C-alpha cells in the first residue's frame, strides 16, 4: 500500500486483527519519506511485515517511473533503518521453497542446506561456497514469491502505454460495486503468464492498455481468495488463502486500493484440503 495513505489504509485492512503498533506507524511515517529521498524513488509502498520468532521484518518497496518494472525492496527490523535487498535469483527461489518453519528474525541466521537438499549443498561445496542459506536470502525469495503469486491491483488502475511502460491510470475512478465483487476485476501485478495462452475469442474482449495482466479468476486452486465486503459494505477486502496474511483492500468508486502482508512468510500448502 502507498506509504502516504498508510494510516487510513491500515484501518481498512484491520478486520483480520493484524496491524502496526502506534510506535511503528509513527516510525514509518518518519522513515519512509527519507527512504524515498535517499533512493530517489517515485513512489514508496509499505509492503508489510514477516513475523519471526525473535523479531519481525518490515518490508518496503520503491517504485521507479515504470510501475511494473522490478521493484527495489528494503527491509528493516525497527521501521527506522532500512537496508536494501538484492534482486531475487531463480536459485534462491528454488532453495527457499524447501525451507520450512517460522523465520528466526535474524537476517544473518544460516539454515543448513545439507539436511534439506543434499544435491544443492554438494554443488555449493564444489564451487567453493559453504552449504548454507542465509535467512536474508530466504526473505528475498519469500517476498518475491508473495509478490508474484498474490500481489494484486484492481483492473484499470494501471495502463500500459504504447512504449511499453506502465503508469497509474489518472482516469481510474475505482471499480463499481458490482465489478468489485468479481475476481475478474482484479489483476496480478506481475509479469503475465496466462495471457498468451488465451484463445483469440477470449482476447477479443480485452483492452490492450488496461488488460495487460492476468486476472484472478483462473487462479489455481479455485477458491484461493476470500472476497468480502467489510465495514458495512464500504470496502472490498480480498484475503489470499494461499499466503495467509495477505490482505488487499479497495474502496469501490474511489482510487483507494493496496495490499499488505502480515504473516509468518509460510505458504499454506494445505489449501486443497481446507476448502
Amino acid at each position, binding site marked *: 500500500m502507498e506509504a502516504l495513505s498508510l494510516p487510513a489504509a491500515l484501518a481498512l485492512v*484491520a*478486520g*483480520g*486483527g493484524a496491524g502496526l503498533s502506534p510506535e511503528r506507524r509513527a516510525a514509518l511515517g518518519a522513515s519512509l519519506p527519507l527512504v524515498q529521498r535517499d533512493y530517489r524513488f517515485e513512489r514508496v509502498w509499505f509492503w508489510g511485515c514477516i513475523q519471526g520468532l525473535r523479531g519481525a521484518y518490515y518490508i518496503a518497496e520503491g517504485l521507479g517511473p515504470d510501475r511494473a518494472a522490478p521493484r527495489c525492496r528494503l527491509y528493516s527490523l525497527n521501521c527506522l533503518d532500512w537496508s536494501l535487498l538484492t534482486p531475487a535469483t531463480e536459485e534462491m527461489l528454488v532453495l527457499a521453497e524447501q525451507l520450512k518453519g517460522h523465520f528466526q528474525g535474524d537476517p544473518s541466521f544460516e539454515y543448513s542446506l545439507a539436511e534439506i537438499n543434499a544435491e544443492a549443498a554438494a554443488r555449493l561445496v564444489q564451487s567453493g561456497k559453504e552449504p548454507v542459506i542465509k535467512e536474508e536470502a530466504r526473505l528475498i525469495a519469500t517476498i518475491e514469491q508473495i509478490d508474484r503469486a498474490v500481489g494484486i491491483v484492481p483492473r484499470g488502475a494501471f495502463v500500459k502505454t504504447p512504449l511499453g511502460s506502465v503508469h497509474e491510470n489518472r482516469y481510474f475512478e475505482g471499480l463499481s460495486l458490482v465489478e468489485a465483487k468479481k475476481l475478474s476485476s482484479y489483476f496480478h501485478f506481475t509479469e503475465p503468464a496466462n495471457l498468451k495462452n488465451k484463445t483469440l475469442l477470449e482476447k477479443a474482449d480485452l483492452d490492450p492498455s488496461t488488460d495487460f495482466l492476468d486476472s484472478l479468476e483462473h487462479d489455481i486452486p479455485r477458491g484461493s481468495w*476470500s472476497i468480502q465486503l467489510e465495514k*458495512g*459494505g464500504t470496502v472490498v477486502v480480498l484475503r489470499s488463502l494461499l499466503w495467509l496474511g495477505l490482505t488487499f483492500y479497495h474502496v469501490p468508486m474511489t482510487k483507494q486500493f493496496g495490499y499488505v502482508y502480515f504473516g509468518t512468510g509460510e505458504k499454506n500448502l494445505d489449501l486443497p484440503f*481446507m476448502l
Partner: protein
Amino acid sequence: MDQSPESDPAEEPQSAYLQDAHEVRHGPYQPHEPGYGLDQPGYSPYEDEIPDPQTRMLAIKNAKAYLLKTSTKSGLNLYDHFANILTKILDEQPANTVDIIENISQDVKLAQFRKKMDTLRDEYVIPPTVEAAEKYKALFVKEGGEDEQEELEEEMGQPSLPNVMETAFYFEQAGIGLSKDESYYIFLALKNLINVQPIQTCRFWGKILGLEMNYIIAEVQLREEEEEEEETEEEGEEIIAEEQNEMDEAEEEDEQKEKEPEPPKSTYKPPPDIPKEANGTGTNKYVYFVCNEPGKPWVKLPPVTPAQIVCARQIKKFFTGHLDAPVVSFPPFPGNEANYLRAQIARISAGTHVSPTGFYQFPVDEEEEADTYEENLEFEPPPVAEMVESLATWAHHVKEILKQGRCVWIKPAQKSEENEEEEEEEEEEEQQEERGQALLTLISEDEGIKDIPAWTVQASTDLIPEYAVAILQSNRWPGAYAFASGRKFENIYFGWGHKYNSENHTPALPPPAEAEFPSDPGITERADPTVEEEMAFKAALEEALAAAEEEENEEVEDD
C-alpha cells in the same frame, strides 16, 4: 507558451500570442488545405504591406467552414469540439495540459452522450451499504426505559460488561486488533447481548475469519437457574430424536427381513460413545455466542462433545461464515459448522488462555483435585521486564483437553449388553486413565513444535520501557495473543482458527475395506480336479462304500 524564447508576455501579450501562433513549424500549405494563403508572404501580418483583406477573409472563412463540417458518423463538428475542449481546459485549468489533451478530448466527446435534460427523473439508487449502516445505527439506540433497567439490575446484580475498548488499547500497543470503529460496534453488540440474555460474566473472545463472513465470538457464563432449564430442554429434544431413530431402524429391519439371502453384516464397531461434559465444566465451562457482524443477532453455539473435538483434531477446514454449512471432511465430522466452530474454540481456549502466574489460585478449603480457581487478591504483579524475560511468569487457567476429547477423563461407557463380552478385552487395554496437565501449569512447560517454541513473548516497546506492555504470542495457534500490564491481562484470538503445523497436513486414510464374506472352504476358489484325480476320488468313494456294506453285512450276521 511562455517557454518560447522570443516572446515576452509581460511587454506585449497580444503580439506574443500572435507570434506564437505563427511560429508553429509547418511545411508549406498545399492549395487544398484550408489554411492555404495565410502563410504566403503577401498575407503575413508582419509584412509592412497591408495584405488584401478580402483574400484573407476568404481563407479564414474557408478554414472555418472546413472545421464546421459535420462528421457523417457522430454528427459532431471539429469547431464546436475545439471550443468545448478549450472551455473545459480553461474552466478546470489542469496541470501539464498538453500531455493529457487526448484524454480531455475523449472526455468531452463522452460527455456528449450524457443526457443533460430529461423530463424523467432518475430513480435514486440505494447503495447496499445502508443496510449495514441501519444495523449499526440500531446498536446505538438505548433499549427500554432507564427505570426498568435499573430495577432489573438491582434484582440480578450488575452483569460484567467487559471494557472492550480498554483491551483493544492494550493490544493495539503491539499492533494487534481491529479498527477502533469495529471494536466499538462489538462493544455495543456485547452490551445488547447482556441486556437480552441472562448473563453472569461476559468476555470478547476474538474473531475467526471465514471465507464469506467472519465470526465475532463472545464467551459468557449464564446464570445458574437458566442453565438448568436449558439443559432439560436439550435433553428432551435428544430423547425425541432418539425415538425417531429407533422407529426408522425398526422399519428398515422389517424391509430387510423380506429380502433373501441376508447380506453380510458389518463387523464395524463404532468407538465407544463418550458422554459430553456437563454445562459449566471442562470444555463446556463457558457458553459461546457468535455473530457475523456486530448488529446482527447473536447465535448460541451448542455444547461441544468429545467426539467433535477428537475429529476436529484430524481435519483442517476453512470456515465459511454460515453456521449451518456442512463440514465436508474425512474423517466425517459429527455435526455442522457450528459444532466445528465450537470445537475449535474449545481447543484454542484450552491451548492459549493464560494469565500471570499467581493471579489465580486454588481455593483453600477444597482438598479434592481442583477444577476451580479463584482470584488471588494478594497477587502482586511482577514488572513487565520480568514477564518478558521468563515464560514461568505465565500460567494456563483453562484445563488441557485430553486425547479423549474431555478435560476430565471418564471410563467409556459400555453401550449394549450384547457386545459386552467382545468389547471387554479391548477395553481392558484402553482402561489406562489419561491425565493432562493440572490447572495453572506454567506455560514454560508447554512443548514446542519441532524447534519452534510454543510461545514468543516481547514487550510492546523498547523505547519507553516504563509504559511497555508484555505481549505473549502463541506459535502453536497463530493469532492467539495475551497481554499483561500490572493486574490487567487479557487473551484474544484473531485468525483462521487453525493450529500451526510445521509439516503438511495429512488427512487420515480410510480404514482398510472389510472382507465381504468370511473366507471358508465353501466359497474359496480352487483349481478344478484333473481326470486322474477324479478317477482316484471315485475309486476311493467306491472302496469306502464297499467297506461300509461289508460292515453292515457283518452287523447283520452278528444279530
